[in-house]
Protein backbone atom coordinates (compact mmCIF):
# COMPACT_ATOMS: atom_id res chain seq x y z
CA UNK A 1 0.00 0.00 0.00
CA UNK A 2 2.79 2.42 0.85
CA UNK A 3 6.01 3.00 -0.94
CA UNK A 4 9.06 5.04 -0.18
CA UNK A 5 10.06 7.58 -2.75
CA UNK A 6 13.45 7.33 -4.37
CA UNK A 7 14.64 10.03 -2.02
CA UNK A 8 13.30 8.01 0.90
CA UNK A 9 11.76 11.02 2.57
CA UNK A 10 8.28 10.91 1.07
CA UNK A 11 5.85 8.23 2.14
CA UNK A 12 3.05 8.00 -0.35
CA UNK A 13 -0.26 6.27 0.30
CA UNK A 14 -3.27 6.44 -2.02
CA UNK A 15 -5.74 5.74 0.79
CA UNK A 16 -5.91 6.02 4.55
CA UNK A 17 -3.96 3.10 5.88
CA UNK A 18 -3.73 3.55 9.61
CA UNK A 19 -5.34 5.14 12.59
CA UNK A 20 -3.04 8.14 12.44
CA UNK A 21 -4.30 8.85 8.93
CA UNK A 22 -7.99 8.86 9.80
CA UNK A 23 -8.25 9.99 13.37
CA UNK A 24 -8.32 13.71 12.83
CA UNK A 25 -10.23 13.77 9.56
CA UNK A 26 -12.96 11.46 10.80
CA UNK A 27 -13.43 12.85 14.28
CA UNK A 28 -12.88 16.57 13.79
CA UNK A 29 -13.94 16.98 10.19
CA UNK A 30 -16.40 15.35 7.84
CA UNK A 31 -19.95 16.40 7.19
CA UNK A 32 -21.88 17.32 10.27
CA UNK A 33 -25.07 19.32 10.64
CA UNK A 34 -25.77 20.60 14.09
CA UNK A 35 -29.51 20.50 13.77
CA UNK A 36 -29.59 16.90 12.64
CA UNK A 37 -26.57 15.22 14.04
CA UNK A 38 -26.95 12.39 16.49
CA UNK A 39 -23.51 11.61 17.65
CA UNK A 40 -23.24 8.57 19.82
CA UNK A 41 -19.71 7.62 20.56
CA UNK A 42 -17.49 6.01 23.10
CA UNK A 43 -13.75 5.79 23.21
CA UNK A 44 -12.94 9.10 21.53
CA UNK A 45 -11.17 10.65 24.46
CA UNK A 46 -8.96 7.65 24.92
CA UNK A 47 -8.00 7.59 21.28
CA UNK A 48 -7.19 11.26 20.99
CA UNK A 49 -5.13 11.28 24.16
CA UNK A 50 -2.95 8.72 22.48
CA UNK A 51 -2.12 10.99 19.58
CA UNK A 52 -1.86 14.41 21.15
CA UNK A 53 1.30 14.27 23.13
CA UNK A 54 1.71 17.17 25.49
CA UNK A 55 4.91 18.90 24.51
CA UNK A 56 5.33 21.55 27.18
CA UNK A 57 6.25 19.27 30.03
CA UNK A 58 9.31 19.03 32.21
CA UNK A 59 9.67 15.44 31.13
CA UNK A 60 9.90 16.47 27.48
CA UNK A 61 12.37 19.26 28.18
CA UNK A 62 14.67 16.93 30.03
CA UNK A 63 14.50 14.44 27.20
CA UNK A 64 15.31 17.15 24.67
CA UNK A 65 18.24 18.28 26.80
CA UNK A 66 19.55 14.76 27.06
CA UNK A 67 19.18 14.19 23.32
CA UNK A 68 20.89 17.45 22.37
CA UNK A 69 23.66 16.71 24.79
CA UNK A 70 24.31 13.30 23.31
CA UNK A 71 23.93 14.17 19.65
CA UNK A 72 27.22 15.02 18.07
CA UNK A 73 26.58 18.26 16.26
CA UNK A 74 29.20 17.48 13.64
CA UNK A 75 26.70 15.07 12.18
CA UNK A 76 24.54 17.91 10.90
CA UNK A 77 25.05 18.11 7.17
CA UNK A 78 24.44 21.78 6.52
CA UNK A 79 25.93 22.92 9.77
CA UNK A 80 28.38 25.77 9.55
CA UNK A 81 29.45 25.32 13.11
CA UNK A 82 33.06 25.56 14.16
CA UNK A 83 33.65 21.84 14.72
CA UNK A 84 32.54 21.20 11.16
CA UNK A 85 35.20 23.50 9.74
CA UNK A 86 37.90 21.88 11.81
CA UNK A 87 36.96 18.43 10.63
CA UNK A 88 37.75 19.17 6.97
CA UNK A 89 40.43 16.86 5.68
CA UNK A 90 39.70 13.95 7.92
CA UNK A 91 36.08 14.14 6.90
CA UNK A 92 35.47 10.59 5.83
CA UNK A 93 36.85 9.00 8.96
CA UNK A 94 35.21 11.59 11.15
CA UNK A 95 31.78 11.29 9.64
CA UNK A 96 31.81 7.51 9.85
CA UNK A 97 32.77 7.73 13.45
CA UNK A 98 30.23 10.37 14.41
CA UNK A 99 27.48 8.58 12.56
CA UNK A 100 27.96 5.57 14.74
CA UNK A 101 28.04 7.71 17.82
CA UNK A 102 24.86 9.55 16.95
CA UNK A 103 22.94 6.46 16.05
CA UNK A 104 24.07 4.66 19.14
CA UNK A 105 23.07 7.64 21.23
CA UNK A 106 19.66 7.97 19.66
CA UNK A 107 18.96 4.27 19.94
CA UNK A 108 19.72 4.45 23.60
CA UNK A 109 17.44 7.46 24.00
CA UNK A 110 14.68 5.85 22.01
CA UNK A 111 14.92 2.74 24.11
CA UNK A 112 14.87 4.75 27.27
CA UNK A 113 11.82 6.80 26.38
CA UNK A 114 10.00 4.07 24.50
CA UNK A 115 10.06 6.03 21.28
CA UNK A 116 10.19 3.38 18.59
CA UNK A 117 9.84 3.97 14.88
CA UNK A 118 6.28 2.70 15.10
CA UNK A 119 5.15 5.35 17.55
CA UNK A 120 3.75 7.49 14.77
CA UNK A 121 1.60 4.86 13.18
CA UNK A 122 -0.33 2.04 14.65
CA UNK A 123 0.55 -1.21 13.02
CA UNK A 124 0.91 -2.70 16.44
CA UNK A 125 -2.60 -2.35 17.77
CA UNK A 126 -5.21 -4.45 16.12
CA UNK A 127 -8.19 -3.08 17.95
CA UNK A 128 -9.25 -0.40 20.37
CA UNK A 129 -8.21 -2.44 23.35
CA UNK A 130 -4.50 -2.02 22.94
CA UNK A 131 -4.50 1.66 22.26
CA UNK A 132 -6.69 2.15 25.28
CA UNK A 133 -4.32 0.50 27.65
CA UNK A 134 -1.50 2.51 26.16
CA UNK A 135 -3.34 5.77 26.63
CA UNK A 136 -4.17 4.90 30.15
CA UNK A 137 -0.65 4.12 31.15
CA UNK A 138 0.57 7.27 29.46
CA UNK A 139 -1.91 9.59 31.09
CA UNK A 140 -1.36 8.10 34.50
CA UNK A 141 2.37 8.65 34.17
CA UNK A 142 1.93 12.38 33.72
Amino acid at each position, binding site marked *: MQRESSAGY*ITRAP*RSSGLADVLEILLDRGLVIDA*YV*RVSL*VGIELLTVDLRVVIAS*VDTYLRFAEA*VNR*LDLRQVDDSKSVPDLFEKGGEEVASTKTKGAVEGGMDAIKEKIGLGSGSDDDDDDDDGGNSRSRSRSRSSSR
Partner: protein
Amino acid sequence: MSRLYLYGITRPRDLPERLTGQGISLIESEGRAAVVSELDEGPVEATRRNLLAHADVVEQLHEDAVVLPARFGYILDSEDEALELLALPEIEQLLERHKGTCELTLRGTYEESVLAEVGAALEPLREAYRAAPSVEAGIALGEAVGEGLADRRARDQTLVLDELRPLALEVLTSEPAGEFGAFNAALLVERGGVEAVEKQLEQLAGRMSPPLHFKLVGPLPPYSFVRLQMPAVA
Protein backbone atom coordinates in the same frame (compact mmCIF):
# COMPACT_ATOMS: atom_id res chain seq x y z
CA MET B 1 -37.64 1.30 13.07
CA SER B 2 -33.89 0.81 13.24
CA ARG B 3 -31.36 3.58 13.30
CA LEU B 4 -29.00 4.22 10.43
CA TYR B 5 -25.30 4.88 10.46
CA LEU B 6 -24.36 7.54 7.91
CA TYR B 7 -21.09 7.16 5.99
CA GLY B 8 -21.60 10.03 3.62
CA ILE B 9 -23.63 11.50 0.79
CA THR B 10 -23.13 10.82 -2.88
CA ARG B 11 -24.98 10.68 -6.20
CA PRO B 12 -27.29 7.70 -6.88
CA ARG B 13 -25.41 4.76 -8.44
CA ASP B 14 -24.84 1.04 -8.17
CA LEU B 15 -22.82 0.09 -5.14
CA PRO B 16 -19.98 -2.40 -5.53
CA GLU B 17 -20.75 -5.87 -4.17
CA ARG B 18 -17.99 -5.53 -1.65
CA LEU B 19 -20.05 -2.81 0.04
CA THR B 20 -23.55 -4.25 -0.36
CA GLY B 21 -22.13 -7.45 1.14
CA GLN B 22 -21.39 -5.44 4.29
CA GLY B 23 -24.99 -4.28 4.56
CA ILE B 24 -24.36 -0.88 3.07
CA SER B 25 -27.11 0.68 0.99
CA LEU B 26 -28.25 3.97 -0.50
CA ILE B 27 -31.28 6.05 0.39
CA GLU B 28 -31.96 8.10 -2.71
CA SER B 29 -33.85 11.30 -3.33
CA GLU B 30 -33.79 13.70 -6.26
CA GLY B 31 -30.31 12.93 -7.51
CA ARG B 32 -28.76 12.68 -4.07
CA ALA B 33 -28.07 9.58 -2.00
CA ALA B 34 -27.21 8.85 1.62
CA VAL B 35 -24.77 5.97 2.16
CA VAL B 36 -25.99 4.10 5.23
CA SER B 37 -26.07 0.81 7.06
CA GLU B 38 -28.47 -0.39 9.72
CA LEU B 39 -27.13 0.06 13.19
CA ASP B 40 -27.30 -2.35 16.07
CA GLU B 41 -28.24 -1.10 19.48
CA GLY B 42 -25.66 0.73 21.53
CA PRO B 43 -23.23 3.53 20.82
CA VAL B 44 -20.70 3.44 18.00
CA GLU B 45 -17.33 2.58 19.38
CA ALA B 46 -14.48 4.68 18.04
CA THR B 47 -12.18 1.74 17.66
CA ARG B 48 -9.44 1.48 15.10
CA ARG B 49 -11.47 -1.09 13.22
CA ASN B 50 -14.63 1.04 13.09
CA LEU B 51 -12.79 4.18 12.05
CA LEU B 52 -10.94 2.41 9.28
CA ALA B 53 -14.15 0.73 8.11
CA HIS B 54 -15.83 4.12 7.77
CA ALA B 55 -12.84 5.48 5.86
CA ASP B 56 -12.77 2.42 3.64
CA VAL B 57 -16.41 2.89 2.58
CA VAL B 58 -16.19 6.57 1.70
CA GLU B 59 -12.77 6.22 0.09
CA GLN B 60 -13.86 3.34 -2.09
CA LEU B 61 -16.96 5.25 -3.24
CA HIS B 62 -14.87 8.35 -3.87
CA GLU B 63 -12.79 6.51 -6.44
CA ASP B 64 -15.65 6.69 -8.94
CA ALA B 65 -17.55 9.85 -8.06
CA VAL B 66 -18.18 12.59 -5.56
CA VAL B 67 -18.71 11.65 -1.91
CA LEU B 68 -19.29 14.01 0.99
CA PRO B 69 -17.88 11.98 3.88
CA ALA B 70 -19.82 12.22 7.14
CA ARG B 71 -18.06 12.72 10.40
CA PHE B 72 -17.54 9.47 12.27
CA GLY B 73 -20.46 8.65 14.53
CA TYR B 74 -23.24 10.37 12.56
CA ILE B 75 -26.43 8.49 13.31
CA LEU B 76 -29.85 8.99 11.75
CA ASP B 77 -32.92 7.92 13.68
CA SER B 78 -34.94 7.01 10.61
CA GLU B 79 -35.06 6.97 6.85
CA ASP B 80 -37.12 10.16 7.02
CA GLU B 81 -34.25 11.89 8.73
CA ALA B 82 -31.98 10.83 5.87
CA LEU B 83 -34.46 12.31 3.38
CA GLU B 84 -34.57 15.57 5.35
CA LEU B 85 -30.81 15.75 5.21
CA LEU B 86 -30.74 15.08 1.46
CA ALA B 87 -33.27 17.86 0.88
CA LEU B 88 -30.99 20.55 2.32
CA PRO B 89 -29.90 22.97 -0.42
CA GLU B 90 -26.41 23.06 1.13
CA ILE B 91 -25.99 19.36 0.37
CA GLU B 92 -26.67 19.91 -3.32
CA GLN B 93 -24.23 22.83 -3.32
CA LEU B 94 -21.51 20.74 -1.73
CA LEU B 95 -22.05 17.85 -4.15
CA GLU B 96 -21.66 20.27 -7.05
CA ARG B 97 -18.65 21.99 -5.55
CA HIS B 98 -16.79 18.73 -4.97
CA LYS B 99 -17.72 17.09 -8.28
CA GLY B 100 -14.12 17.00 -9.43
CA THR B 101 -12.15 17.56 -6.26
CA CYS B 102 -10.19 15.44 -3.85
CA GLU B 103 -8.29 15.96 -0.64
CA LEU B 104 -4.63 15.30 -0.05
CA THR B 105 -3.39 15.17 3.51
CA LEU B 106 0.22 16.05 4.07
CA ARG B 107 2.06 15.48 7.31
CA GLY B 108 5.58 16.65 7.96
CA THR B 109 7.64 14.89 10.63
CA TYR B 110 11.17 15.49 11.77
CA GLU B 111 13.70 12.83 12.40
CA GLU B 112 15.58 13.19 15.67
CA SER B 113 18.55 14.79 13.96
CA VAL B 114 16.55 18.01 13.92
CA LEU B 115 17.53 18.33 17.57
CA ALA B 116 21.18 18.52 16.58
CA GLU B 117 20.37 21.35 14.19
CA VAL B 118 18.30 23.18 16.77
CA GLY B 119 20.86 22.49 19.48
CA ALA B 120 23.72 23.84 17.38
CA ALA B 121 22.57 27.36 18.19
CA LEU B 122 22.42 26.71 21.94
CA GLU B 123 26.07 26.25 22.81
CA PRO B 124 26.09 28.17 26.15
CA LEU B 125 23.10 26.24 27.51
CA ARG B 126 24.51 22.93 26.31
CA GLU B 127 27.83 23.75 27.89
CA ALA B 128 26.14 24.61 31.19
CA TYR B 129 24.18 21.37 31.14
CA ARG B 130 27.25 19.34 30.30
CA ALA B 131 29.24 20.94 33.08
CA ALA B 132 26.51 20.47 35.68
CA PRO B 133 23.66 18.26 34.48
CA SER B 134 21.12 19.41 37.04
CA VAL B 135 17.37 19.30 36.51
CA GLU B 136 17.33 23.10 36.30
CA ALA B 137 20.02 23.20 33.61
CA GLY B 138 18.21 20.41 31.78
CA ILE B 139 14.93 22.28 31.80
CA ALA B 140 16.59 25.49 30.66
CA LEU B 141 18.25 23.68 27.77
CA GLY B 142 15.19 21.60 26.95
CA GLU B 143 12.94 24.64 26.95
CA ALA B 144 15.28 26.42 24.56
CA VAL B 145 15.26 23.33 22.34
CA GLY B 146 11.46 23.31 22.44
CA GLU B 147 11.37 26.96 21.40
CA GLY B 148 13.88 26.38 18.65
CA LEU B 149 11.80 23.47 17.42
CA ALA B 150 8.65 25.61 17.42
CA ASP B 151 10.41 28.28 15.33
CA ARG B 152 11.65 25.63 13.00
CA ARG B 153 8.12 24.20 12.63
CA ALA B 154 6.63 27.58 11.82
CA ARG B 155 9.36 28.29 9.28
CA ASP B 156 9.08 24.91 7.56
CA GLN B 157 5.29 24.98 7.43
CA THR B 158 5.40 28.37 5.73
CA LEU B 159 8.05 27.22 3.28
CA VAL B 160 6.15 24.10 2.31
CA LEU B 161 2.69 25.60 2.09
CA ASP B 162 3.82 28.68 0.17
CA GLU B 163 4.94 26.33 -2.57
CA LEU B 164 1.90 24.06 -2.50
CA ARG B 165 -0.83 26.67 -2.09
CA PRO B 166 -0.82 27.73 -5.76
CA LEU B 167 -1.57 24.10 -6.69
CA ALA B 168 -4.58 23.82 -4.36
CA LEU B 169 -8.10 25.18 -4.33
CA GLU B 170 -7.99 25.43 -0.55
CA VAL B 171 -5.56 24.63 2.25
CA LEU B 172 -6.30 23.86 5.90
CA THR B 173 -3.68 23.39 8.58
CA SER B 174 -3.87 21.88 12.04
CA GLU B 175 -1.55 21.30 14.95
CA PRO B 176 0.93 18.52 14.32
CA ALA B 177 0.84 15.58 16.70
CA GLY B 178 3.78 14.50 18.76
CA GLU B 179 7.09 16.04 19.66
CA PHE B 180 8.53 15.59 16.21
CA GLY B 181 5.49 16.56 14.21
CA ALA B 182 6.32 19.45 11.88
CA PHE B 183 2.98 20.32 10.32
CA ASN B 184 -0.38 18.89 9.27
CA ALA B 185 -2.14 20.16 6.19
CA ALA B 186 -5.16 19.21 4.11
CA LEU B 187 -5.14 20.34 0.49
CA LEU B 188 -8.24 20.46 -1.65
CA VAL B 189 -7.18 19.91 -5.26
CA GLU B 190 -8.73 19.01 -8.60
CA ARG B 191 -8.56 15.27 -9.21
CA GLY B 192 -6.25 15.99 -12.08
CA GLY B 193 -3.99 18.10 -9.89
CA VAL B 194 -2.59 15.36 -7.67
CA GLU B 195 0.47 14.75 -9.80
CA ALA B 196 1.51 18.39 -9.70
CA VAL B 197 1.50 18.29 -5.90
CA GLU B 198 3.57 15.09 -5.92
CA LYS B 199 6.16 16.66 -8.18
CA GLN B 200 6.41 19.80 -6.09
CA LEU B 201 6.77 17.67 -2.99
CA GLU B 202 9.69 15.76 -4.53
CA GLN B 203 11.42 19.08 -5.04
CA LEU B 204 10.70 20.18 -1.49
CA ALA B 205 12.04 16.90 -0.12
CA GLY B 206 15.18 17.43 -2.14
CA ARG B 207 15.79 20.68 -0.32
CA MET B 208 14.37 20.00 3.15
CA SER B 209 15.13 16.34 3.84
CA PRO B 210 16.63 15.33 6.15
CA PRO B 211 15.47 16.11 8.77
CA LEU B 212 11.99 16.58 7.32
CA HIS B 213 9.95 13.55 6.25
CA PHE B 214 6.69 13.90 4.35
CA LYS B 215 3.66 11.66 4.27
CA LEU B 216 1.16 12.34 1.51
CA VAL B 217 -2.15 10.48 1.55
CA GLY B 218 -4.76 10.68 -1.18
CA PRO B 219 -6.65 11.29 -3.39
CA LEU B 220 -9.21 11.13 -0.58
CA PRO B 221 -12.79 12.35 -0.39
CA PRO B 222 -12.91 15.97 0.78
CA TYR B 223 -13.08 15.16 4.50
CA SER B 224 -11.84 18.57 5.60
CA PHE B 225 -13.88 20.66 3.18
CA VAL B 226 -17.49 19.67 3.79
CA ARG B 227 -18.20 21.68 6.88
CA LEU B 228 -21.61 23.34 6.87
CA GLN B 229 -22.38 26.46 8.81
CA MET B 230 -25.94 25.83 9.90
CA PRO B 231 -27.71 27.42 12.81
CA ALA B 232 -28.63 24.85 15.43
CA VAL B 233 -32.35 24.36 15.68
CA ALA B 234 -33.64 24.37 19.23
